């Protein structure tokens, strides 16, 4: 396989990871914390004793952000290794 074909496939896989993670990012922050907050406060079970939407806005979304970045680092590392771009923390 030629190098340019390889890098195209890599870019596509990259974009897929990017869109999925940004989708989750939008849902946990703007979705849960703002757009559907009232609905979630009323309908969903509380987190501990706090209303669900409110808790997402002040705590849950931030925790999810960390998980998103961890997932990004892990997925991209795996992708780099698959396409032979991996060079570790230290660089080459």
């Amino acid at each position, binding site marked *: 396989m030629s190098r340019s074909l390889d*890098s195209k496939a*890599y*870019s596509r896989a*990259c974009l897929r990871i*990017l869109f999925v*993670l*940004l989708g989750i*990012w939008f849902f946990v*922050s*703007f979705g849960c*914390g*703002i*757009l559907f*907050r009232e609905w979630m*406060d009323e309908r969903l079970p*509380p*987190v*501990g*004793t*706090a*209303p669900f939407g*409110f*808790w997402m*806005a*002040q*705590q849950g*979304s*931030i*925790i999810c*952000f*960390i998980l*998103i*970045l*961890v997932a*990004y*680092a892990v997925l*991209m*590392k795996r992708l*780099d290794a698959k396409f032979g*771009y*991996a*060079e*570790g*923390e*230290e*660089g*080459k």
Partner: protein
Amino acid sequence: MSQSMLNFVFIGVTFAVYIVIAVRSRAGSTKEYYTAGGGVSSFANGMATAADWMSAATFISMAGAVAMSGYDASRFLMGWTGGFVLLTILMVPFLRKFGKATVPDFIGDRYYSKWARGVAVICAIFICMTYIMGQMRGVGVVFSQLFGIGIPAGVVVGAAIVFFYAGIGGMKGITYTQVAQYCVMAFAYTIPAVFIAIMITNQPVPQLGLIGNYSLNGESVPFFEKLDRINAELGFQEYTTGKLSMVNMFCITAALMCGTAGLPHVIVRFFTVKSVQAVRNSACWTLVFIAVIYLTAPAIGAFARLNLIEELHDTPYVEAPAWLQEFEATGQMAWVDKNGDGKIQYFGPAKSEFGVNTVFLGPQPVYPDYDAPEGQRQGEHGERLLANKADLTNPNELWFGNDIMVMANPSMAGLPMWVVSLLMAGCIAAALSTAAGLLLVLSTSISHDLMKKIVKPELSDREEVNYARGASFVALAVAAYFGINPPSAFIAQTVAFAFGLAASSFFPTLLIGIFSKRMNKLGAISGMLAGMVFTSSYIVYFQFLGGTKEQMLFGISSEGIGFVGMLINFAVAFLVRPFGGEPPKEVQEMVEQIHIPSGAGEASHH
């Protein structure tokens, strides 16, 4: 040992540590000066970036903002952390691969134009300048309390310290001092929170206390239910609902997020690590360290609010806790006995027919001169009297600045004196680390992007670093001037400006530059100008020229307009692009290259 002695010891020890670190890791070359030679581990870089990101304002005022506006303050919590997700996923790995030292460098090269670089430099300077002014003020206030000197002298002392280690140490020195500063900040912020959580909810982890039960005085009710009820009884908005409109909330959060992702002084931090993979790991660590503070802030805010109301509302002044008088003395709290019953009443806007709860007339408390007769300075219950006239249209008698929610926490919770000292040291650490990081970006923008790349291309390495040191001195002098003579309410409003500008100029331009091969300079520059002009004129009109709420576009306040400016930037860029022809071949190749993570090498400034 007295409180002020303890403060000296704590701050003295932390300072000695910072300065030893700065001297030991001072920069030897331009590369080390700008990007620490690209050799900082991702863990250390994450910690340093977190310290850089947490300004004195965040450290002191954010919990206060949460306490005062409850749900509405979520916009800061989500905005300033969610921005890091955008930054990590969309920006820094690609910019790191590109491998230049500054953000205007990327914009200048990607859009093959001095004009684009020039616009970017001006934005970068403006954003950093806005930020650094507030930091200098913060440092000045803390130093003046500490040494008992005036605020101007406090600002000058702070400026001298920042100049010393930013100028000498460069990025390398700053990075390692910031690691130490983060540790001080994190302890200072979380320890009081743990104590107050145990006191109010019987839970040692503040975040668990928040979702647990209120357990003071043998009661056991869900914590937020209790807070909502108290707020409603006193005539405030329910804590968990807030009063901003959904559109406004959405736009402000989005503007803060995109603004964060476009802040040049944060982006530049990730040029200090060795590879693209290290950038991703480093960003993870940064967010973890930031989250330690951001997840604690809502807990501190909510606990402090409840505690404050329980301790003060309907309490006779003579029986009130001692910290009330301490804060009256520093002018951060005030009590005006409107109904003459000797008890403190704290009420919200809903208790008045005009919907306000101002205690006195005028924006700030004003006190009688020290040589005024005793009767004008002290009331019959021993309270400190104001020179302002009382606002008798509503029953609220208690005034306090937002900042006390963090600073008063240890006294409210009855914690030992050393906790207060730790908090002061943490506050100074927050201000100094942010100021130093900003100063470095500012001086780089001037020496590298302006002098070397636009005005005098033949500058040698050595001359460039000298220009950078000179520029940081001038910038600091200007910042110190504004720290001493703040353009009054101007500083708070310019923060909206900084984020709005970053969101409407840098963020979209960088994003298109990274992901669209075919965007040309005409499209990018028109987009950047359109977004910038729209956002700044909207903010200037509503903040300084007296625009009214009814005139606002969809009711979006000036804090959130950066989001609309960003959409305008995108739209204009893509509409204008067809008139500008294809970008040169080597630029297109460069865009393809930055998407391949390997071979990033060291960030250079050539």
